[in-house]
């Protein structure tokens, strides 16, 4: 799967003969995203998340949606994004998905659906189901970041203010609700993790509470860092000043 995601990318960039610093930077970002995807899917986190720990399941979700997906999006050059959408005839669909309200609803809808007890217990009971869940997470992660860092500039929302509010609400506020259910539930919600052999004596209830805390807290650095970068860009845009020296361009 990882080869399927990375080899065509590298071949396409090489064929284009694009070896400038921007292309290299994008390739590093993309491959970093693929590596995070691999770390979140393979042993040990993949195994723990699939069969043993709700907290590992949640860590996987956060890595997929808040780290791997944005890194991959940042790593896709515009020409590649256009070519992919053209081949898939998905330009119109992705354009609609990149509207902030639609993206927020899709992401949080999938978040709720893929953390509902029935879904988790059904999909986690077999490898195909687990794979489907991973793909849904990756898809929702890509969608939720589209209005902010889409490779295609016309898909990004133009207003920094809207983007800041969007990131805060879609990624920072709504997920707190299911996180609260996990943290304060009276019983383990997922039979998959409740009826798994205990991992280093961690009870199913405590494991679920950790999962809730991860969902609530782990996204904070990503959300607030993203908002801070966008505020900085917004300030420099409105003041007419050139931005201060900056780290690799994360937010377009």
């Amino acid at each position, binding site marked *: 799967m990882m080869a399927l995601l990375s080899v065509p990318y590298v071949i396409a960039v090489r064929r284009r003969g694009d070896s400038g610093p921007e292309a290299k930077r994008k390739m590093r970002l993309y491959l970093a995203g693929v590596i995070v995807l691999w770390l979140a899917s393979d042993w040990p986190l993949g195994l723990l998340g699939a069969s043993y720990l709700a907290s590992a399941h949640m860590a996987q979700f956060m890595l997929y949606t808040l780290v791997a997906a944005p890194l991959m999006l940042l790593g896709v050059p515009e020409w590649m994004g256009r070519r992919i959408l053209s081949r898939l005839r998905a330009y119109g669909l992705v354009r609609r998905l990149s509207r902030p309200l639609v993206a927020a609803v899709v992401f949080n809808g999938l978040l709720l659906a893929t953390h509902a007890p029935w879904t988790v217990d059904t999909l986690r009971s077999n490898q195909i189901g687990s794979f489907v869940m991973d793909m849904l997470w990756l898809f929702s992660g890509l969608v939720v970041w589209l209005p902010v860092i889409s490779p295609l500039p016309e898909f990004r929302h133009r207003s920094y203010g809207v983007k800041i509010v969007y990131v805060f609400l879609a990624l920072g506020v709504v997920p707190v609700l299911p996180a609260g259910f996990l943290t304060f539930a009276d*019983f*383990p919600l997922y*039979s998959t993790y*409740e*009826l*798994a*052999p*205990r991992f280093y004596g961690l009870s199913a209830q405590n494991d679920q509470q950790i999962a809730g805390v991860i969902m609530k807290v782990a996204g904070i650095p990503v959300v607030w860092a993203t908002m801070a970068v966008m505020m900085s860009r917004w300030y420099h845009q409105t003041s007419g000043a050139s931005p201060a020296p900056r780290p690799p361009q994360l937010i377009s």
Partner: protein
Amino acid sequence: MVSRLPLVLAVLLVLSACGRAAAAPEGAWAGVELARPMAKPHLVLTDTDGNPYDLVGRTAGRTTLVYFGYTSCTDICPIHLAQLAQVMARNDMPRDIAVVFITVDPRRDTPEVMRRYLDSFDPRFVGLTGSVAEIDEAQRMFGLPIARPETDDPGVYGHAGQVFAFAPDGVARTVYPYGTRQTQWVHDLPLLDAIPAATTAVPATEAGS
């Protein structure tokens, strides 16, 4: 209104008594109902202190959960015991429930090994062992197939996976197979514990008959 108060109280009393007597009408259990309720078997094994443990005598009048397993088990046994430990740690659960773990691997499960194992879940759990013949007989008394090591892996035992739940009256009406969730335990344990010790309402068959 005042003159009616004794009547109202009497009605409430009768209703609450009915509720108690019918603490768990048929179909009300979250566990698996036995076709024929089973009396607690009269067996005496050795506890983790090396002393004789008379199951009926030591657990008389208490809700008692009996499970056959072994300490090297990697899946069903630790899950059952972890579930019970977590349920029993809840404040809304009856305090005086006896959990009795009977080993099916008495050669390896010495009293010390069992005590260490059970303490990792809940120090109140009782561990029982005995000779191979005694353990086999205990399983027969519960109507279970005799657990035997698997042919391709002698360290692994195929054994019954259900927990027998005896109410304070010494009768098991339900069993709890592997996969029983904490919500099911929390639903049933107070109902079981509410059955009075002296009731004779439920006809119990002799264990293993």
